[in-house]
């Protein structure tokens, strides 16, 4: 339970990512036609959020090692947010959609965790006194 509670910064980050995505969906972008707006959404969803998830994963991997409790807590929050969004928009989510969302979250996050673990291992090896 303590480990779940100590995951709050990462859970908050996921919730803020979701909120910002919902905000972008309702914002007006003056001077942009629908094709440009579509490109912007594509860039944000395929590039910006994966990089943010990667960065969060790197910070997590570096600071705590492979903390599966936090990874799972964030995934649950991420899925709950998607289900909530779809319920509000009256757009039912299929199991396939949920699997896609999970992969969208898990792949960059795990690549980030791997990078964080690598940085942590290199730093610890360098910090050990040489014989």
């Amino acid at each position: 339970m303590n480990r779940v509670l100590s995951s709050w910064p990462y859970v908050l980050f996921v919730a803020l990512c979701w909120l910002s995505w919902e905000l972008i969906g309702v914002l007006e972008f003056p001077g942009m036609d629908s094709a440009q707006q579509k490109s912007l959404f594509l860039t944000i969803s395929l590039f910006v959020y994966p990089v943010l998830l990667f960065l969060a994963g790197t910070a997590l991997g570096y600071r705590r090692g492979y903390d599966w409790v936090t990874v799972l807590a964030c995934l649950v929050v991420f899925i709950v947010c998607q289900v909530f969004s779809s319920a509000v928009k009256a757009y039912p989510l299929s199991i396939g959609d949920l699997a896609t969302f999970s992969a969208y979250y898990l792949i960059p996050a795990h690549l980030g965790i791997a990078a964080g673990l690598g940085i942590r291992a290199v730093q610890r090896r360098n910090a050990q006194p040489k014989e």
Partner: protein
Amino acid sequence: MPEVPELHAFASRATAGIAAPAERAGATSELYEHALSAYEEHRASGLAHDDAVQAALTQLGEPSEYRKDFARAHRARLTPRTVLLIGGAAIVFMILLWAFFALIFGVAS
């Protein structure tokens, strides 16, 4: 080395805040050995098994007192150099992501 489940439970509870499994196992084993040596001292002074376990646990204190310190000690700090390394890793990831999409959309078009 005798196995004392109560001391093992104490060590497991005290190190529960460490997220990395390998580090948690190492810390648990180290703390267990520390608890065991306290237990053996009490046994050597003539206490029975149950009394020695109780005395060792009293001597060590509450597991919750250790938990926060252990979790903090095993959490790596973000230094400016580390932030730079993480930024570098993110740039590499962005390049790989760009190459991946260029490949996908390049092949598709």
